[in-house]
């Protein structure tokens, strides 16, 4: 069965390490915060200028001056730091953020990503996505493997305007964990009950399958 949004987030959470500074994008990436393994400490970075983002506030804690990059009201954890947007992107561009998780429309075998613009539709902008993909050393993309019409989002070459080039090396989809290297997708894990054939059929770009591909397990 394909993974739920929560299961995708749970799988991404296994990429976390104790002491990581992490930037989570909007949507599924945000859910990763709910699955930080117990005993592990991570610090969430929000690109408007907050390192150490906490949970949403209670009604009594709501403060218009305390928001995240999605413009949602949030809190700060003990030990948080707040700074300007230039400082925030200095830590992103300078490669100081350990892990970035974000969504995408398309990813290709060269590690290119398209995530902000569909021609013909209103373009709202890239926000911080271009800075994040250009600055991070370690990026995980979360997305469904195919769109709702069944068209693969893992392509030989992206068709939409790019957010960044040669920057993505790992994708967690509802069907599989994929790594990108040497100009190909490499199948690392598959969702429970999803066959290698199905993944192959829904991956338009070159997919390398070597040996037995382990199935993900969830408690």
């Amino acid at each position: 069965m394909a993974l739920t949004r929560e299961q995708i987030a749970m799988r991404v959470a296994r990429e976390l390490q104790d002491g990581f500074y992490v930037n989570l994008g909007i949507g599924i990436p945000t859910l990763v915060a709910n699955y930080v393994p117990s005993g592990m400490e991570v610090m969430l970075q929000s690109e408007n200028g907050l390192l150490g983002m906490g949970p949403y506030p209670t009604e009594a804690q709501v403060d218009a001056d305390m928001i995240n990059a999605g413009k949602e009201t949030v809190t700060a954890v003990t030990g948080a730091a707040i700074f300007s947007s230039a400082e925030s992107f200095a830590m992103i561009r300078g490669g100081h953020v350990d892990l970035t998780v974000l969504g995408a429309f398309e990813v290709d075998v060269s590690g290119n990503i398209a995530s902000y613009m569909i021609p013909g539709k209103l373009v709202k902008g890239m926000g911080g996505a271009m800075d994040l993909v250009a600055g991070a050393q370690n990026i995980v993309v979360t997305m469904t493997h195919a769109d709702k019409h069944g068209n693969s989002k893992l392509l030989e070459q992206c068709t939409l305007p790019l957010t960044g080039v040669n920057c993505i090396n790992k994708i967690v989809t509802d069907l599989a964990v994929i790594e990108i290297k040497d100009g190909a997708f490499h199948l690392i894990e598959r969702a429970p009950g999803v066959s290698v054939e199905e993944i192959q059929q829904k991956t338009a770009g070159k997919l390398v399958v070597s040996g037995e591909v382990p199935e993900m397990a969830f408690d």
Partner: protein
Amino acid sequence: MAGFDKVVKTYEEAMAGLEDGMTVIAGGFGLCGIPEGLIAQIKNMGTKDLTFVSNNCGVDDFGLGILLAEKQIKKMISSYVGENAEFERQFLAGELEVELTPQGTLAEKMRAGGAGIPAFFTATGFGTPVAEGKETRQFNGRDYVLEESITGDFAIVRAWKADRYGNCIYRDTAMNFNPMAATAGKITVVEAEEIVEPGELKPTEIHTPGIYVNRVIQGSFEKRIERLTLRQ
């Protein structure tokens, strides 16, 4: 005004000199940390053909969005826009120019502008539509795009506390783009939640030194919340 006292009493004085066709750099992220009273004053003045440099363009009836109704904005330089219907209508009708700029590049353009740096190389946007027509160059085997910095005829800023000399501190994430905006205006106007006497703010805690600031006005703020999210 005498010496370093930059406090003005009225919004008219605060925005005096703003003319049609000027460029205004505005602090704020979404509706957080925006200089509400200064935006309202620009609306009252009816100044037209303005270029705004701001991460966002507010919502229909709040923030920079209120300047759209009378078509006071000619161009927006922003990273994320279109959270208001009138913005969308004007953009699709070709009445409003939009220059989409990555958020970090936008912050750095303001910072560099205020620091006298005319342009800088960044990896952000290389190989994307943002880099079209721009010079690129390799450093240590990596590709970078040359981005030009931005200065404004005016910068409008919201501070938490400002002293009479224009030294400012910001509150929580309402800081966002405000410190960079403050450095990048030929005339920088600070709307503060509270004006204090020089010496009340600790010198080591000043976020924006008064040298960047030309005018300070006491504001009053609605502080509207764009997305109220609560713990379950």
